[in-house]
């Protein structure tokens, strides 16, 4: 008996494949195996002998099972290792599938500035691209025959309408809709009847801003522009105001920033002046407030216009404005 057990153990240890091991298991430990046979006969034995035989069978069974399990897990480890090795992959090959597309650089900068203004409590408003003469000019204190209309070559449409030459009409619409106090910006597409070249487009993007409240001062305007431009350019900027004429503001300013390229020492970007003209702004002309039903004795404010297209060109160092409306994916895919 013991010899049989020893030889079975030896066979378990000697098995070289999982199949071989399995056949030993079936022969010895299976339902019809040797151990099962031994147990079957036990009923015929005397009680004392039976107890001794039972003990022997249990011991042998435990020894055999443990040997079998050890051997079996050995085979499994080897098999797993072989499978894992066979599953070797080169992860340096390019990932299949489509890359995400991208948003137009104008959209990206526009959103960035919108978010900045929203964090300061400004509403983001939208206005029509086809405007009335009233909203584009008259309500902004630019009556017909005003020389300021020469500054903005206008596309006229049949039916007496026009394509907005600036986003300023949204100021008027914003004041009419929301009333004072008011903090708003209006980004959008504007049109000027100008020939297109590397630095001129008849279709470009502006962002108009306005704040109406009680006692808004030039000091507030300077603070605001400095804060805003610092956030746009991600660094401290030095600004200066100088007189500029825009009929919808009084006083009106041109705002320059100290050249970010040369720091003010002079370079080709700032035409050696140390300053770069960035945006027109001013205190809202009382005539404009009145035209929008706001009492200038009680309310006043400031307004400014930011050239989004220009900002995009500065941010990404784009030398030719025509790329922006080109629809060329070799260009647009870079953003």
């Amino acid at each position, binding site marked *: 008996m013991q010899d049989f057990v020893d030889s079975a153990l030896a066979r378990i240890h000697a098995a070289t494949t999982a199949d071989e091991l399995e056949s030993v298991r079936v022969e010895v430990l299976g339902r019809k195996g040797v151990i099962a046979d031994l147990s079957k006969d036990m009923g015929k034995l005397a009680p004392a002998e039976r107890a001794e035989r039972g003990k022997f069978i249990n011991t042998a069974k435990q020894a055999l099972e443990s040997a079998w399990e050890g051997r079996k897990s050995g085979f499994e480890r080897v098999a797993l290792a072989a499978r894992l090795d066979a599953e070797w992959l080169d992860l340096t090959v390019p990932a299949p599938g*489509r*890359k*995400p*597309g*991208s*948003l*137009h650089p104008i*959209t990206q900068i526009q959103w960035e500035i919108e978010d900045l203004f*929203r964090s300061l*409590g*400004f*509403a*983001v*408003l*939208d206005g029509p*691209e*086809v405007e*009335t003469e009233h909203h584009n000019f008259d309500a902004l204190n630019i009556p017909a*025959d005003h*020389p300021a209309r020469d*500054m903005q070559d206008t*596309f*006229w*449409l*049949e039916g007496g309408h026009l*394509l907005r030459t600036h986003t300023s009409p949204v100021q008027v619409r914003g004041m009419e809709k929301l009333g004072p106090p008011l*903090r*708003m910006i209006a980004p959008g*597409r504007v049109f000027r009847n*100008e*020939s297109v070249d590397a630095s001129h487009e*008849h*279709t470009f993007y502006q962002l108009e801003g306005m*704040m109406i409240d009680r006692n808004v*001062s*030039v*000091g*507030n305007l*300077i*603070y605001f522009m400095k804060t805003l431009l610092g956030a746009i350019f991600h660094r401290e900027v030095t600004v*200066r*105001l*100088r*007189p*500029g*004429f825009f*009929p919808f503001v*009084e*006083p*009106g*300013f041109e705002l320059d920033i100290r050249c970010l390229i040369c720091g003010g020492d002079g370079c080709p970007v700032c035409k050696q002046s140390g300053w770069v003209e960035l945006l027109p702004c001013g*205190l809202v002309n*009382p005539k404009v407030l009145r035209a929008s039903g706001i009492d200038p004795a009680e309310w*006043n404010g400031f307004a400014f216009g930011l050239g989004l297209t220009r900002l995009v060109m500065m941010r990404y160092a784009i030398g030719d404005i025509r790329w922006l*409306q080109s*629809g060329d*994916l*070799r260009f*647009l*895919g870079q953003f």
Partner: protein
Amino acid sequence: MKFSYNWISEFIDGLEPSAESLERIITIKTAECEGVDSFGRGLAGAVSAEVESVEPIEGSKNVKATVLTNLYGRKTVVCGAPNCRTGLHAVYVPVAPKTVGGIVSDGMLASESDLGVSNDHAGIIELTDNERLPALDHVIEIDNKSITHRPDLWGHHGMAREVAAITAKLLREPANLSLLPEAGGPVKIEIEDTSLCLRYSALVFENVTVRRSPLWLRARLTSIGLNPINNIVDLTNYIMAELAQPMHAFDREKLHGDTIFARPAREGESIIALNDETYELSPSNVVIADASGPIAIAGVIGGRDSAISATTTTIVLESASFQASSVRKTSSALKLRTDASMRFEKAQDPHNTVRALARAIELLEELSPGIRLVGGLADSGREIPVPAPIQLDLDWLARKLGCTLESPRVRAILESLEFKVSDDFTVTIPSWRATKDVATPEDLVEEVGRMIGYDSIEPKAPEVACAPSYDPPEREFLRRVKRTIAAQGFTEVSNYSFISEEDARRFGLAVEDHVRVLNPIAAGQELMRTSLLPGIHRNIVENAKHFDSFRLFETGREIHKQKNAKPEEVTHLMAAIYSKDDGRAALLELKRTAECLVPGISVRPTEPRPWEHPARCAAIYLGDVEVGRLSELHPSLVESGRAAVIDLDLDRIPRSIDARYIPIRKFPSSAFDLSLIAGVRELAGVLENQVRDFAGEHTESVEYVREYQGPPLPAGKKSVTFRILAGAPDRTLTTADITAVRERILNGFLALGYESRE
């Protein structure tokens, strides 16, 4: 507008800043300068000199001249000019001596081109006795846009007033009004409408000699970009550039009658102007006329027939003031912008007419010696309104600027600009600032602000109420749409809002449905787009030259014509997939993209549009609202490859979807598949809707699984398989319940004549 530094400094004694510093000062305080250039480089050190003797040089065209200079003593120069002769008053320039043909030439006799005052190099300059020489000058160019509101800055004296105020110097007045004769001229003035011609002043001079102007005058006009013509015309231009008052001189002999009329042109009148062009006039144009008709277009240009010529001996010198908007209208209607019209359209000060005439009397004595005034001053016009004074509240002013201000400082600033300030700060506006520029207290904020310097104002955070901002839902919606589609591999493009008639026709869009641009920038941009398609199509064609496959999209406004109303603007999204395969995948991919953008859409068959592949197009619905189209472009529009496009009307799509939690079912559901035999062109979507309709109670969902064509199915047939999920919220369904669902579907289809593939 160009300004001569020397000219400005003639009005300010002891002007210290250089031209370069003046440019900076003017930019910061007054108007934007565009640069400084020197003028007349050769004038450095130039003096007048008399040619004492001229000797020929053998074998040379040059001559050896001995000249007596005004500063450097006697000099010998070699000169090649044909007009070099004894007795000539020339201009000597002390250049370094050099040997020419064995003779040492110590300096040179200059031509105008040598001095840099004109391009004339035909000969050396001939001065008249005692003629003064111009000096080296600097020219500051000011951006015209920055002085459109300042009629006074269109002349040197006005700019000098600014400079004097900024540098705290005294300003000299160039015109001496006491030179003006008594009223009562030899010509009569008749103004038909004094709202159009506010004032007309004139003087008549006789014994006039028309000739070339002296060098200093020609140089000065040239320096600021005006062409010298003759002494009389140059005089009018000089005074215009000095006092901002345009003037005009007529040849008295060529005028008919002795009355000058300022009146609207009669219907059918025309005039040949100084530029030799003929202008057809209408009653909206104001003209100056004599008894026979128009002699000038008021405020714009003079007539050729009454112009000054070499034989003119008597002149009528006009100095008038016209309504700004009338001059502007005429000038833009005739497409004729002149130095005069540019000034008049800024609303010139009517007080200035006689000031210019007084200045002319003085200058003409030098320019045309022997000239004599005939009679007195002809002067007619309406009474010039006195501008209402402005009450300035200093506290208010300080609040507007956001800084503290001492009242003596404010007073000094305003007075330096020639505003009159009373003890209680009632501010009187000077006439040259009152026509269009200054009228309100806000205008004075600018005057004080720019003079104290905006850099002296401390930046200060505004104190405003904290409040959430109004947030239009469409903005966030548009952002979500753009972000989603970009994440699906589409790159955003931006196209013009203009299309051509040809574009419209190519895509089968009726040309007359488009809003027309009255003044298009170029051919091919005459219509406003009613679809994003022409732009997207161009993007597809262009990018197909560089890429085998790509995805792009645009969001933008369509502009739709309305009867008697403002055109309607509709925001659309158009996306395209270009590929070089059979095009199936692209269309389904676009459909998937649309489902990402607008969950819950469905696709229905539709009539093809002219630009669509007739067998590959569909309408997109959200509920029962058509919100867009999905189609392949007609192969005739895409040379190689295929392009699938989707067009969504974003204005018809709900801005936000209200999500609401539905409890997860507690009892298990059961799924079963069911296949139907249908014709190959029957739409899976239609069948699916029918399955849903028939399934009825206990149906949780119906899902398309697959379809199959081929044996054992007969030709022309396909099998379509759907998976139906059945369940109930309150119990587990019995086999009988599920069988009932299945039976309802099968019976429904059997009744329609279909078979199932069981």
